[in-house]
């Protein structure tokens, strides 16, 4: 069935009159220079994200303070990541089928690294992989993201070009801008509808 459908559809499309293929007009996406981090912060905060500047020395301590404030103790982490006393690190070290119950109900926060971030829209770029699976940034009610300041760029076009995305896309690439939200009921914003209710970004200013 699908083969015949394919042939019929393509035949109809090929028989149609063709328009000229237009050129891509010049377009320069916005850049921010020295104001890059300020722009990133403003855009992220505008969509209910929280942002803190930390260092490679003190980020773990900051996480433990931030999570203690929220009464969160059980934290899903990439295998090998250790957390200060007081937090229970639950490694995402098995396939989701084994961990479903823990992921859906059993942890209060999840920690991932960002591959990059985009100042223009206050966006985090994640390429989930075997160590930091896709659901780690989605199921726990609080998502904590570690971002190296050096990986903050101006716009999406820049990150795609610098990291040569077209040469090979990962299984899943994500752009995340704020916590999960909806405005489906009378255009009133509500957070945490299916994904995290809170998004906390720690910017490692010395990395």
């Amino acid at each position, binding site marked *: 069935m*699908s083969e015949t459908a394919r042939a*019929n559809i393509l035949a109809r499309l090929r028989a*149609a009159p063709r328009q000229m293929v237009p050129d891509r007009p010049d377009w320069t996406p916005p850049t921010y220079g020295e104001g890059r981090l300020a722009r990133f912060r403003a855009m992220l905060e505008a969509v209910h994200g929280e942002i803190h500047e930390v260092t490679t020395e003190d980020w773990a301590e900051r996480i433990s303070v931030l999570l203690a404030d929220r009464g969160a103790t059980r934290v899903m982490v990439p295998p090998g990541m250790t957390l200060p006393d007081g937090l229970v690190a639950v490694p995402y070290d098995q396939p989701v089928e084994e961990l479903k119950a823990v992921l859906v109900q059993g942890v209060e926060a999840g920690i991932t690294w960002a591959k990059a971030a985009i100042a223009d*829209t206050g966006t985090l770029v994640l390429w989930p992989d075997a160590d930091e*699976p896709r659901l780690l940034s989605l199921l726990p009610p609080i998502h904590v993201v570690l971002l190296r300041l050096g990986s903050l760029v101006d716009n999406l076009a820049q990150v795609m070009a610098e990291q040569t995305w077209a040469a090979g896309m990962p299984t899943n690439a994500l752009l*995340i*801008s704020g916590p999960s939200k909806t405005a*489906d*009921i009378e*255009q009133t914003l509500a957070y945490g509808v299916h994904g995290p209710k809170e998004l906390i970004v720690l910017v490692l200013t010395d990395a």
Partner: protein
Amino acid sequence: MGDFTSRAPAALNDPTLRANFRRAMDGLMSKRAAQFADKDAWESLRAQGAAAKARVVARLPELLEQLEANLTQNGIVVHWAETTAQANAIVLDILQKAGAKTVIKGKSMVSEEMELNHHLEAHGIRAVESDLGEYIIQLAGEAPSHIVMPCIHKNKAEIASLFEKNIAGLGYTEDVDALTAAARAALRGQFASADAGISGVNFAVAETGTLVLVENEGNGRLSTTLPPLHIAVMGIEKLAEKLDDLPALLSLLPRSATGQAITTYVNMISRPRQPGEKDGPKAVHVVLLDSGRSRVYADAQLQDTLRCIRCGACMNHCPVYSRVGGHTYKFVYPGPIGKILTPQLEGLDCAGDQPHASTLCNACVEVCPVKIPIADILVRLRAESVNSTGSGAVKGAGSMRKRLESLVWKGWAAMYGVPMLYRLGSWGLTRLGNWLPDSLPMLKRWTSVRTRPRFAAKTLHELARDKGYDHE
């Protein structure tokens, strides 16, 4: 049922519906305007978006083949469907072979076009909508009234009653956070136990074989990540040529739709779960649906309809849509884009009234992020609907032709072609026109809701002569 005109009064006379739409449309228009306050930046971004989609239309068959090749190489299974019935059969077959009994769905207008939920339920498979708006209308047993915000026609009180009735343990509350939390709790279990996830696609990138989905809630990510099987359904036009096209398109879509700089999530899927990866579906399928689109493509003017990225800005700014709401259109795609798309997909014989439900005010054209000439296409479809000797590009052409109307236009043409007839006609109308009864068949629809203009006592030529202008 009936036509648009007969359905409209019920909506126009419903004060709750009117208020719900007015509030929503005003909010959406002002949020969008704030995003595009810099007119130069808007025009240059829009030129980029329009060119990206025009390139897709210009090279559609080649890009579809490239997309198919890259998806297949990435391990995603590609299916083609000429009709919605074929697409339903393909989805059902995939689910049955996987032994799936329950499906969790992300928002997809193509699946609405297919009436996929009904089809699956008729075959014993339960499909649960997970987008909050879609979940609400599924509970209410209704269809979406807007392509981006499906339950925009409902207010808090209506949703509170609906949840009270359908979610065990939840009393009546109008608190939006409480309603949202109740839906989250009700759907978490569904996500965890679903055998498959079904989603739409916003952009399928031919260059890399990547499915791009935008959303705010996270339900789209859950539907495409947690269940072991993911099926994406998409129209054959929803392509982007290259990743390089995404920055402009991903900027235009949410800003035009909801006035957001970007959606909370942009989810780019290129493969099923790979060895060593711990989550994600083990199998990913894509169903490419034609359902009339290749016919739209067959006409050089009409094929611009296929640029649409489904942002909904045209309906948010439409003076007709904002007063009658989405359900009055009866079909899946309402508003200006619906008025040009539906008659082409379904035929003018069953949706020929749609292009006429417009004031041609051009607001939709001004806000369209990919520059679809909606007004020109509306006029073209109006002509096709009454012209039986038309181009044959649209199914059901000529089905709206009325003998009396065509007679009147023939008389009009004759009057303007022959000076003596013109003088006779205008003389007659100035002397007798005001005596014509309001109830005349051609006049009634106009005079029943409007004050009739009065004819002057003399023709323009007579008035000119009285003033001393002798020559014509």
